[in-house]
């Protein structure tokens, strides 16, 4: 029998993979995708818990998380493009003009 814990564990694994990706990848877009993985794992948690708890709040939350993801995607990608226009790069190591 698949319990809620299975789902939670799966989402935890995905969450950590997402973190790992954010911490290691240099390509801004890939990092962005890794964040999406994290958000998705949260979504999975929400839905699993929502079903487990037995109310809809979690699922509504997922709905909004998706909205947010979309909004962030739009703005984030726009920012990446703007940066690319200036520096011809999407490598996050290239934005370290501001430091110290």
């Amino acid at each position, binding site marked *: 029998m698949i319990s809620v814990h299975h789902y939670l564990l799966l989402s935890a694994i995905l969450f950590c993979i997402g*973190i790992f990706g954010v*911490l*290691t990848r240099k390509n801004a877009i890939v990092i962005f995708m890794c964040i999406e993985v994290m958000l998705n794992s949260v979504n999975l948690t929400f839905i699993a818990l929502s079903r487990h708890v037995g109310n809809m709040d979690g699922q509504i939350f997922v709905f909004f998380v998706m909205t947010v993801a979309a909004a962030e995607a739009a703005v984030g990608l726009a920012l990446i493009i703007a940066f690319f226009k200036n520096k011809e790069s999407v490598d*996050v*190591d290239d*934005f*370290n003009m*501001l*430091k*110290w």
Partner: protein
Amino acid sequence: MYSNLWLIPFFPLLGSIINGLVGKRIKSEKVIGGFATLLVFFSFLVACQNFFRLLGDNVKTHEIVIFSWMSVGKLQVDWGFLLDPLSAVMILVVTGVGTLIHLYSIGYMHGEEGYYRFFSYMNLFAFAMLMLVLGSNALVMFIGWEGVGLCSYLLIGYYIEKQSAGDAAKKAFVVNRIGDFGFLCGLFVLYWTLGSKGVWTFNFVEIAENAHLLETGGLVVTVVTLCFFLGACGKSAQIPLFTWLPDAMEGPTPVSALIHAATMVTAGVYMIGRMNILFAMAPSTMLTIAIVGAATAFFAATIGLAQNDIKRVLAYSTVSQLGYMFLAMGVGAFSAGIFHLMTHAFFKACLFLGSGSVIHGLHHAYHHAHLHDDPQDMRNMGGLRKKMPITFITFLVSTIAISGIPLFSGFFSKDEILWWSFGSTRGHWLLWLLGALAAAMTAFYMFRLVFMTFFGEQKTDARAKDHIPESPLTITIPLMVLGLLAVIGGYIGVPAILGGANHFHHFLDPVFGKSLHLFHIEAHGTHATEYTLMAVSVAVAVIGIFVAWVMYIKNPELPAKFVTKFAGAHKIVFNKWYIDELYDFLFVNPCKKIGTFFWRGFDVKVVDGIVNGVAWVTRGIGSGLKYTQSGYLHNYAVAMVVGVVMIVGFYVFG
């Protein structure tokens, strides 16, 4: 009845202020000098009036309070004056001699720059000295005590352009301050000890009345008196604080006469006399005083033997004579000490003024001949007795007086001291021996001085030798008056053994009698002993004079031989036993080194080092931490995850 007492110090103060403020505008030296002299003379008149009133009065102690000075809780200090025989004698001496010396200065200081300044200072000094002797409590006395120090500072440094004058002035003040330190400490301890027994006072009368509250010979009274004695040492140039006095001769000669011979330097003696009851209660202190006094008398006399500067000889002689006074105080011969103080004031003032007259004359001559020789060096003098007869006579009279030749004032006072030091319950024959030796040396160097100056060949530069005048009247009148006093001044205190009534002793009895009586201080011995001693002292004086005569008149080449033979001893004596150098080595230089170390080493390196170090470390940490902010997104993200792991980890495992 004695309510005009305050006028005595007030007149000179007024003179000082007026001369100080407007003197610069007054062109006439006569007006300035005359005014200053007149004011001191007024004081003298008032002093005389009070003195005679006191003579006729049955009550011998009068305290006059002007107004309250400090009042804080149980501490009540008044501006108050005390008139008793002791202060009466002192005010007479101070104002009398003061008037004469003021008068003398009018002529002597003629043409000096800052003439008004000089008289302002002199008046101020008279004021301070009168405060010292009249003060009814230790604090008013201390005002005078420090005030005379201040004036001494000002007057020694009168020639402001002279480096040595400045040094000497500073030295005088600082050494005096060391004494003041002792004085203050003693005062505080006394105040607190008496206070803890219920008597919070600085008043002399009250101190004397309540002295029985202290334990006789106890620690407290010993400490207190020793502290006071330290103060007295500073002011009166006793070992170990005598070094300033010879240097003080940098001041104008009237200053040396007034301050450094007649009045200020005797303040220590006066103070001991004032507090005699306390000293009487502390035999060990008395012994210390006697030893120090005798040692000083002896020691300073040795130095006096070899000096060539006329004023320096006199200065060491002063130190030596002061030693006698302390010896007197130390052996309980209080009235003898004061007596010697008075006679010494007469003849030493006369001597100084005489030397001043000589210097004045030589200076005049050199000036006339455009020479720059030292007018104070005795080796440039000689044979002046013809040129300056009045000066010579008064000088000679005073020299005889100081040498202790009978019938002159010095004889009576000195002899009484020597007798007491031998025969007093607190005396010792060794003290007497030292005193007698010093007396011999005194006679020697004083006559050496007279011979070198007034007798023999005139060694002054040929160009100047014919231009040495006798001094003007303003100078010679004081000389004559003082010379006279040096002769007759002793007769008020002719001891009983010589058929006198010793009026002086009796007059002072209300002040000293009690302590002498209470603590059984008296000189005892047979008349034979007393006569013998007297004879011995006269004999040694005569021997001294004779030796001087042999060496400086008979065989003028003898001193040089002597010097070569005892080169080492002479060098030591000539250089004043290297005391100044010793003090430099022991105190002055270490202080400077410590000061520099504290400043450069402790303040700058340690304290500021810590302060700046903290700042530096803080900035350093900042600079280090700054590099965590690397600009790389990954690092930031890592930091965040670390934070999350820590927080969540704390919750999960903590």
